[in-house]
């Protein structure tokens, strides 16, 4: 007898988290542009505040439109739940702040988005949270950097901008052997290309601004918990396993088991740091998610075409795309990313920094800006923009050179994109 089956990814992308509106019958997700919610009576109010009933109190903590996005992302990732945040950076901060206090330590991949590098390497350090950055290609590097104070291992599923493939199964094994969770930034892969929880990650987040939203219209983040990490058994997380005076002496793990992390992140992190998502933003991102399963294959298909074009062009020194046999993580990519390695990648111009400027300024279809994951194709020079705070040595560690150009391949006709790039390459060589 065949067992029951789950709805497919495409169906969840369109439906998870939302029933047609009970009052109006609205099929699209309504935008609940409200700060607050009327209590039925005093008893109802008290019960909501004390978490005896489910529901919304104040939109900094939860909002019906935002909740649809959260549930949908949890469904697509196979998590217990999610919290949408004001940005991807807010999601990373929320994860860290929920798991550790001053004195805590993180072991992170050094192949990170520049903003994440800033947060971990500089800003959180001011608040007593240290990070050791390691080269992610050797999972043992994570193990060697773990200290008694370590509370989190962290990396990007595909590093920005070098597309280093994080060996999620191996790094999660290192984490779990040390009683620690693994958090991954899955922005470049989206749940369509990789399911990090199935590979062993415990927590993940996205900059929803990128492929999830997909159209460059809204800034947002989403933090998802697998619910699989046993905080009690680890014994390293009193934030989740001991009574917390900041929330009526609640022991979050005892209270809610698999939901402990999200409970504290929402009830403390959103409440106090306040980096919540606006309902209009959630609506925009939901519109993008509804076509994620259609857009990602096209992004990947066009990227493959363009990668081949660049790899065979005399003006180009190196193309960093894990599907190319020369990429250091080619074999790992074939194993972990069979649907493709995304639509963001870098290449080096032989003509260096000045050639890079001429290249970018000659482009007509690609837009020169600091974003990725848009329906429109984008281009940027990381050394002067997203990673400009990094020293040359740190840039080199992250695999970025002075002539490195990052492309985000959109949904235009690939032939038009190639024509545009060819124009840029000719200009770069002048």
């Amino acid at each position, binding site marked *: 007898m065949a067992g029951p089956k789950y709805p497919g990814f495409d169906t969840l992308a369109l439906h998870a988290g939302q029933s047609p509106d009970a009052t109006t019958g609205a099929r699209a997700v309504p935008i609940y542009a409200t700060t607050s919610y009327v209590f039925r009576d005093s008893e109802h109010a008290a019960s909501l505040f004390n978490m005896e009933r489910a*529901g919304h109190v104040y939109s900094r903590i939860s909002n019906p439109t935002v909740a649809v996005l959260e549930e949908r992302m*949890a469904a697509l990732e196979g998590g217990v739940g*999610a919290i949408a945040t004001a940005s991807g950076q807010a999601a990373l901060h929320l994860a860290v702040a929920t798991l550790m206090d001053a004195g805590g330590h993180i072991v992170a991949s050094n192949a990170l988005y520049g903003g994440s590098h800033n947060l971990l390497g500089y800003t959180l350090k001011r608040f007593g949270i240290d990070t050791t950055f390691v080269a992610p290609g050797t999972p043992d590097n994570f193990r060697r950097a773990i200290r008694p104070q370590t509370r989190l291992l962290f990396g990007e599923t595909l590093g920005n901008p070098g597309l280093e493939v994080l060996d999620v199964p191996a790094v999660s094994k290192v984490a779990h052997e040390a009683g620690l969770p693994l958090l991954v930034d899955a922005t470049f892969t989206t749940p369509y290309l990789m399911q990090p929880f199935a590979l062993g990650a415990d927590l993940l987040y996205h900059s929803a601004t990128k492929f999830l939203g997909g159209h460059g219209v809204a800034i947002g983040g989403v933090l998802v918990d697998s619910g699989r990490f046993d905080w009690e058994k680890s014994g390293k997380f009193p934030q989740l396993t001991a009574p917390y005076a900041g929330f009526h002496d609640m022991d979050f793990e*005892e*209270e809610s*088991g*698999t939901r402990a992390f999200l409970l504290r992140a929402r009830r403390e992190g959103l409440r106090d740091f306040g980096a919540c998502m606006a309902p209009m933003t959630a609506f925009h991102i939901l519109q993008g998610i509804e076509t994620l399963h259609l857009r990602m294959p096209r992004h990947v298909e066009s990227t493959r075409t363009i990668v081949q074009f660049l790899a065979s062009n005399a003006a180009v020194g190196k193309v960093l795309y894990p599907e190319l046999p020369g990429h250091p993580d080619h074999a790992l990519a074939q194993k972990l990313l069979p649907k493709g390695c995304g639509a963001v990648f870098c290449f080096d111009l032989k003509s260096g920094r000045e050639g890079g400027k001429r290249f970018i300024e000659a482009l007509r279809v690609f837009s020169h800006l600091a974003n990725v994951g848009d329906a429109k194709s984008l281009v940027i020079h990381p050394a002067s923009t997203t990673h400009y705070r990094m020293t040359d040595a740190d840039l080199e560690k992250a695999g970025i050179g002075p002539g490195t150009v990052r492309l985000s391949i959109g949904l235009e006709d690939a032939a038009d994109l190639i024509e545009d790039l060819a124009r840029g390459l000719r200009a770069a060589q002048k």
Partner: protein
Amino acid sequence: MNFTLDGRQAFAYTAAHALDPARPTVVFAHGAGLDHSWFSLQSRYFGYHGRNVLALDFPAHGRSEGPVLATVPEMADWVLRLLDAAQIEKAGIVGHSMGALAALECAARHSGRIERIALLGIAYPMKVSDAFLGAAKENRQDAYDMETIWGHAPRVPLGGNPNPGMWMYGDTLARLARLAPGVLYSDLRACNEYAGGEAAAGKLKCPVLFILGRHDQMTAPKAGLAFARKVPGAQVVQIAPSGHSLMAESPDAVLDALAAFL
């Protein structure tokens, strides 16, 4: 709160309150493969509304040590021993699915100690398919999938969770992933083999409330209703949108029914 029963740690959530023998007590007994936090909203409510709460983790579930209890009568007697350990003389029991069978049996065996029972997501007999049992016996993932999918109303994967931002399927799967091998099979077998339901129903002396989900795919509401008719004076509340996981799918409706009954 941890207790020692039979030389092993047994856990019951008390909603962060010390037990007061002068207060009425409500025991919450979870279903197959689950734990005390399945009742988190409802148990917390009663803990903050003048009741002692003991939301149990049956042995080998949640924070309680194993070994797992193999039969429903063993579970019923274990509940009594936990009340003894907590120095609670009388209690009401809210049981869900397997926990409802344990509550029924406990009330029948120990009528002087059990003041009332609320039976959620119950059917009797609680037969489990061979396919489900076989998968659970082999600790196969499809057993956890059956528990998850049949454990919720069909609308759940396509609908909204009343608990903002949570994904009910994911939550169930994460709980099941924490179980030791063999525990789900033991629980399901206990439900499948329990044969004392009608006898227990005949011995009940306390008020009984049935709370049934109209879209329950695990314990069909028709079977639940048929069994309720065999319990003289039983009250029945049917929750229209809910499947088997009533406490998560329709938390407020369940709480309202319990608050009116307990």
